[in-house]
């Protein structure tokens, strides 16, 4: 097989690598770029452990050819924190003890972030519905749902403060 050069943005940095047509994104991330936060679970799209963002949307890296991400923007669990500051969803998972063995956590966190982007105030049912492709074998999901709910509440508080700030500073009001 012929090797193919690809270029893409990974967690904000440009990467150029050479891959085989049958290389899967998950293995390039883990074995070539040493980003082992993305996990290999089932390999057939049932468990969600390998979830990463392509163009800010969650996809499964175990069913994605590495060649197909040429020119795209990839975000993995390693790309969420800003320096030493964790992403609010990561903090919510820690605070709510939503992590046991941790294997499903990267996929869970990325999918949960995507949920809140689509629906900033999900009900418990909506959370379960959206997260149904991410399987956890330890927690029983209760803490995970709680963490996501807590993160959504934290976010809405934050937005409320931001709105007050913006009124105080008399910035123009933004329509959501």
């Amino acid at each position: 097989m012929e090797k193919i050069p690809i270029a893409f943005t990974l967690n904000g940095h440009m990467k150029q690598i050479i891959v085989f047509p049958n290389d899967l994104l998950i293995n390039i991330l883990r074995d070539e770029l040493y980003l082992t936060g993305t996990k290999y679970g089932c390999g057939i799209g049932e468990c969600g452990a390998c979830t990463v963002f392509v163009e800010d949307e969650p996809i499964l890296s175990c069913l994605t050819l590495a060649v197909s991400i040429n020119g795209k923007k990839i975000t993995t669990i390693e790309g969420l924190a800003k320096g030493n500051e964790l992403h609010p969803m990561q903090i919510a998972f820690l605070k709510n003890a939503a992590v046991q063995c941790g294997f499903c956590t990267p996929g869970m966190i990325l999918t949960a972030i995507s949920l809140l982007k689509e629906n900033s105030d999900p009900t418990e049912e909506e959370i379960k519905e959206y997260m149904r492709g991410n399987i956890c074998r330890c927690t029983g999901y209760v803490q995970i749902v709680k963490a996501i709910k807590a993160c959504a509440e934290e976010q809405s508080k934050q937005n409320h403060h931001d709105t007050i700030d913006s009124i105080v500073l008399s910035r123009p009001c933004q329509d959501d």
Partner: protein
Amino acid sequence: MQTNTKILDKHFKYLAPTTLEDALKYLSHYKKENLKILAGGTDLLVKMKTTDLSADYLINIKGIKELDYIDIEVGLKIGAVTSLSGVVKEKKVKEKYIALFEGIHSMAAPAIRNMGTVAGNLGNASPAADTIPPLIVFGAKVKLTSKQKERIILVEDFITGVGKTVLDPDELITEIIIPKTGENCGSAFIKNSRVKADLSKINCAIYLEREANRCKEIRIAFGSVAIKVIRARKTENILKGMVLNPELMSHALLEASKEIQPIDDIRSTADYRIMVAGKMLQDAIELAWARADNEGRGE
């Protein structure tokens, strides 16, 4: 031997056209070779990992921007590479074609829906596909394009068996065309699966048009009960043009359970499928009937 799903151990040449013209050239050029079309990869790559399915050439059509669209001007047209998420996020799909919305929404999970396409679900031609029963009851057609010609055929006639379609080796599914719905119409999709994200044990879609108490038009499709998704025509004929009453309904439900030919497999048994088919049909009809008050108006 245990399958290693961490890797894809098949070797192939990768082609990634960015225009339809280039894609059709490739298809025409390699039509005698073992070529497979890749869109989302959620079915094809799983099969290539877990079975002996292989490809010498893999043509990834996901980069063809001109096939990524939803056109809602007249009826509904869906481009071949439009993601399933893209379809359910379009408001009009939920308003006017709720059975299709429900079918797609019932599939797997968001990440899979971000990858998969309606055209891919059709091309994969699984009897358990969740987009196919809704497409069939809406009278959807599929546009097949090759370098030489273009043809438009009913989704119902497109699939011929398990994984089998009438698609020629040099053809590509380029568009799904769903006609405008009628007046006072309602639709519904119901699925029975072990857990929500799972494949269907049995699924059912209904489209009906209501005229006061009368059921003017009805189309019924069942999935996972035969080698392909089937229309329950005899059942439809019992209900069409009639005022629905309990007696007629029980007659229809009995007919439906006779019309399907399910098998025992890993997801369920033939007996179970026959037993629940009638109940599912009843629920779906009631749902579509209630919706017929709103859905389909104003178009």
